[in-house]
């Protein structure tokens, strides 16, 4: 293919525009059966916390029309085991890695940044301030411009590496541009969006919410128009700020919508569950879509839908 698909998120160069979405590819290893993980734009790891975390009770998922709800609740082994077992695998396999971090409070985000800043092999940091699967809604930092910027401020202060800090935003807000502005002001190099929408399915036999966690995060193609809108709005307001776009991307055509709306790269999430080869397939398809339309590089298309 003659199209140049390389791209970048601030200082991070990506050889391919498709990454895995946090929480949808664990730490990359299981996907290795379906493709060479080192050829992906990046693996964005499942959000890691300071301590091991068991997550929420099951059932943790419900399929919904063209989407799914999940209430995993950030189950994970904690940062030490992550560095030891997961990051080392990624690094030794030459995988471009964006580490996603999540804290219970502002200080924990800072601690995680401090631990990670000197670890080699980290391409970028995605700061998950938008996970809806936490015990209290009040913990969703990305729903409030002040708490969102506090987290990013703190991470920025600790982060001595040149790898970019991406703030992961929630669509569950009245004005996502305001939130984006606040994290950019606080020092985020770019934004990732969108995280899931808060949703619920009722089990009408048991007459209670289906998920163990009652509410869950809605993802998949169902939410794609919301994600494209968010990317478009934030790119319009901050055209210089790189965006890692995600939300229901299933095909190269979908990915192209995000690029045209202003994303510099995309993450593939829920669709990986149905099609583990999707991150590679979508990159190929995206190349074809660009080629058919006569473009020679992905970069020239970033944000192009704003020009017409």
């Amino acid at each position, binding site marked *: 293919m003659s199209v140049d698909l390389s791209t970048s998120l601030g200082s991070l160069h990506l050889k391919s525009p498709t990454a895995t979405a946090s*929480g*949808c*590819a*664990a730490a990359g290893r*299981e*996907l290795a*059966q*379906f493709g060479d993980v080192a050829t992906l734009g990046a693996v964005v790891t*499942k959000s890691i*916390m300071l*301590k*091991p*975390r*068991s*997550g*929420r*009770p*099951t*059932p*943790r*998922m419900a*399929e919904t*029309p*063209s*989407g*799914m709800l*999940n209430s*995993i609740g950030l*189950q*994970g*082994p*904690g940062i030490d085991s992550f560095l030891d077992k997961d990051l080392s695998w990624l690094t030794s396999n030459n995988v471009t890695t964006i580490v996603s971090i999540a804290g*219970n409070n502002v200080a924990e985000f800072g601690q995680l940044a401090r631990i990670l800043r000197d670890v080699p092999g980290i391409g970028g940091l995605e700061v998950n301030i938008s996970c809806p699967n936490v*015990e209290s809604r009040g913990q969703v930092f990305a729903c409030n411009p002040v708490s969102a910027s506090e987290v990013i401020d703190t991470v920025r202060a600790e982060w001595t590496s040149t790898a970019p800090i991406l703030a992961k935003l929630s669509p569950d807000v009245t004005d996502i541009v305001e939130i984006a502005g606040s994290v950019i002001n606080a020092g985020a190099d770019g934004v990732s969006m969108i995280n899931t929408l808060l949703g619920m399915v009722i089990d009408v036999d048991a007459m209670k919410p289906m998920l*163990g966690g009652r509410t869950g995060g809605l993802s*998949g*193609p169902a939410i794609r128009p919301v994600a494209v809108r968010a990317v478009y709005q934030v790119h319009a307001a901050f055209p210089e700020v790189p965006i890692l776009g995600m939300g229901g991307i299933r095909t190269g055509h979908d990915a192209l919508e995000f690029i045209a709306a202003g994303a510099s790269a995309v993450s593939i999430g*829920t*669709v*990986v*569950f*149905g*099609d*583990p*080869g999707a991150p590679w397939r979508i990159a190929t398809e995206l190349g074809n879509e660009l080629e058919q339309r006569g473009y020679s590089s992905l970069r020239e298309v970033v944000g192009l839908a704003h020009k017409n």
Partner: protein
Amino acid sequence: MSHAQQLTSRIRSIEPVGEYFHIVFEAPTIAEFVEPGHFVAVAVGGVGSGMLLRRAFSIHNATAGDSIEVIVAAHGQGTQWLTAVSAGTEVDIIAPLGKPFLLPTRPVGCVLVAGGYGAAPMGLLARELRDRGCEVEVILGAATQSRLFGVLELTRDADNVTVTTDDGTSGLRGRVTDALPDALARINGQAVYACGPMPMLKAVAEVSKAHGAFSQCAVEESMACGIGVCMTCVLPVVGDDGVTRMVRSCVEGPCFRGDRVRWDDVNTVPVDAFGAPVQGGH
């Protein structure tokens, strides 16, 4: 760990068997890697489908170089779609998935216990065990006769088959576990293999333990990915170190040691589980 393969498979045939459907998928490159207890994940809905997630089925049979077979209950939308397509339809499948049943290294007496379509993997398992010189007793149970599966086949592949139904329409009226002690006694059973609904597995694990037999239970947890990346399919299992962890049933199962699953705590996160929330915050 065998590598899972993703492939576009032609459905060779779909036939009703009782309340279930027997589906044969052409899968020449996959079949030889299948072991008893493996499952296949099938994409459903076709062009423009609103169903994103695959459906998981125990592999019922595998013919090297040719095909794999499953037994499907038409339950919700996805299985309704799958059991209504015509032979010749192409569907995307991924297999083999999961950890298969752990097999005895010596020829011991084995009892295979299944509820409903839980009998699907038992033929493959029975043949494998008998190849290894094990004596095999089978207990098949269901709510009612039409939900029994595999009686004929297992009568051929095992040394003895006992049937139970809740309503007495076939075999003994009662539960599979009612028949388990006798079966264990008949062949001096050392290992029990079970597949079926959770309450049945729990009961089988308990009876086995009480009779000093080792048990392997294939669980059926709701799965989004089936390949270990999403963490939806977890249940509390005690590790070798005595610590309870929320483990993924798609990659660390679906076949677990019955004495290691904390059956009463399924659908919860036990307070003593690794990483469980601690009082006063995390």
